[in-house]
């Protein structure tokens, strides 16, 4: 196994971000007078540099490191989603961590390293590199989830850890079985093996392998019934980390799902689409129904993220490039709206008190008009109401599902979407329609310039991609063209 400079070219963005992570750690150590306000911006600078070195956005598919890592338009598209996620997370974290007294360099470094793991996951073209990338990402996130080291944070971290390790076990056993059945763990190789040997699709070892890989990914994307503890982990983790987990992990995991299911298991679509059909339906429905019952906005958003995974699964079921492009669009839209919503959540809290109960939002819409406007925008976008990016995302996914004749799944999807309107609107109802209590829960906002910038960027993203989606849709379709 040798690798050339051309291979290194594919890895440049990852290396840049890794270097940024190390630099952040080093910078804290040598900073005079413990001034470290600039650390997150060092990280953002790293992400910006990485964005400029990202290859393959328009070029044909390339692959390097003996078929371990791709440098294609698909990977590049997901990288850009992840850059947005990473940069917004760092922006959101800055004021939050400072206020909580936890602004350590390790946090920023871990975010950057998790980001590298996510990127590798999106670029991986070999099941082993998918696994290694997944672990790089997950281990960093376990630590991030427990970063506040209080009871809730530690519990969240522990639960996320057990869930993650458990699911990695399934994924890995599935990989081992596929290796046994196909003789390779390269994604293209598996496709070739299934395509050339029809009988293989019926072999118990191959089917068990596909099944276990499916279960492993279902855990990772928090699909019902593999979602237990996900809401706990989301609720207990520091809010900025929750935003990162809900958007970044989801984007990376679905990128890997697309590669594995759309490429490696392409010829088995009839076998897995039925299973995923049921998973998608359960995930949407249970996610939404339990979200309706929540009285804590953070936990509600956790369940809603399960529901969103369900909508994306509808696209996976459809299994066409068109659906894949819709999924990519959805992931980007979701990144903007979800991080934006969590940023608003952070703003209403103060040190030691998150104030995420729904009642804390009473009357805030008129008290803090900018916050109210932003939160409403994100809620409408998550509910999929035009003219927001959330609508276009759902539109593209449902469009692809209808194209493949999945009318019923689409109908269930839109009905779910209508049900979700109820709990998203409830936040707006509380903010605008209910008077503020006599003793205000939220007296001031935890908003610094960085937080404001992050919210504005997220809001602009939601609106821009909702009103002028054309160019991005084309890019997403192009990304899929090279994948499948």
């Amino acid at each position, binding site marked *: 196994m040798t690798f050339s400079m051309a291979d290194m070219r594919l890895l440049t963005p990852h290396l840049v971000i890794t270097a940024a992570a190390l630099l952040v750690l080093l910078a804290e150590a040598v900073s005079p007078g413990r001034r470290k306000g600039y650390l997150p911006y060092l990280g953002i600078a790293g992400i910006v540099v990485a964005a400029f070195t990202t290859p393959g956005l328009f070029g044909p598919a390339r692959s390097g490191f003996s078929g371990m890592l791709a440098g294609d338009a698909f990977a590049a598209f997901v990288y850009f989603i992840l850059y947005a996620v990473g940069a917004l997370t760092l922006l959101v974290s800055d004021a939050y961590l400072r206020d909580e007294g936890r602004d350590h360099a390790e946090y920023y470094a871990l975010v950057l390293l998790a980001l590298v793991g996510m990127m590798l996951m999106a670029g991986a073209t070999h099941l*082993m590199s998918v*696994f*290694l990338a997944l*672990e790089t990402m997950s*281990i960093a996130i*376990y*630590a991030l989830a*427990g970063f506040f*080291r*209080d*009871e*809730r944070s*530690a*519990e*969240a*971290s*522990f*639960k996320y*850890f*057990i869930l993650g*390790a*458990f699911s*990695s*076990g399934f994924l*890995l*056993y599935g*990989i*081992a*079985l596929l*290796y*046994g059945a196909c*003789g390779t*763990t390269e994604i293209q190789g598996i496709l070739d093996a299934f395509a050339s040997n029809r009988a293989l699709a019926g072999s118990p070892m191959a089917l068990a392998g596909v099944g276990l890989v499916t279960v492993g990914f279902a855990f990772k994307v928090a699909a019902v019934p593999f979602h237990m503890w996900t*809401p*706990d982990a989301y*609720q*207990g983790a520091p809010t900025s980390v929750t935003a990162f987990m809900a958007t970044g992990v989801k984007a990376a995991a679905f990128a890997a799902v697309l590669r594995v299911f759309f490429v490696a298991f392409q010829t088995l679509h009839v076998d897995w689409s039925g299973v995923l059909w049921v998973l998608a339906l359960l995930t949407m429905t249970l996610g939404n129904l*339990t979200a309706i*019952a*929540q009285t*804590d906005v953070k*936990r509600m958003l956790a*369940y809603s993220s399960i529901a969103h995974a369900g909508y994306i699964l509808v696209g996976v079921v459809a299994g066409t490039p068109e659906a894949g492009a819709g999924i990519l669009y959805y992931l980007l839209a979701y990144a903007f709206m979800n991080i934006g919503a969590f940023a608003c959540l952070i703003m209403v809290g103060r040190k030691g008190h998150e104030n995420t109960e729904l009642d804390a939002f009473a009357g805030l819409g008129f008290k803090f008009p900018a916050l109210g406007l932003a939160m409403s925008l994100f809620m409408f976008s998550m509910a999929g109401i035009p003219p927001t990016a959330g609508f276009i995302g759902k539109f593209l996914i449902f469009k692809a599902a209808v194209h493949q004749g999945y009318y019923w799944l689409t109908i269930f999807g839109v009905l779910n979407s209508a049900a979700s309107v109820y709990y998203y609107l409830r936040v707006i109802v509380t903010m605008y329609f209910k008077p503020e209590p006599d003793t205000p829960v939220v007296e001031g906002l935890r908003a610094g310039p960085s937080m404001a910038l992050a919210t504005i960027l997220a809001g602009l993203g939601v609106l821009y991609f909702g009103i002028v989606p054309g160019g991005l849709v084309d890019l997403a379709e192009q990304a899929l063209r090279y994948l499948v």
Partner: protein
Amino acid sequence: MIPFEYSMGLSAVLFGLGVVGVLVRRNVIVLLMCVELMLNAVNLAFVTVADHLNSVEGLLYVFFVMTVAAAEAAVGLAIVVCLYRARRAVHADEISLLKG
């Protein structure tokens, strides 16, 4: 020479034990051990398949898995220690601050 099916069967049994252990045991240290058991079952499967296919790749993967398992265990134990300090509990049922 142990037949292919035998060692694959053993690995499946080990994996199953790990899964059941995670699902039914409540002591967090035992949970960690069960996860390790699952990963080692995977290692056994990789070795068996590599032997069966006469390929060296599977043997290499075992090293990856072992490294990852070690890293996971390190972080996992750190989290458990942190949790124990915060709550004085190592029983999963007692860790239930976050419930909807």
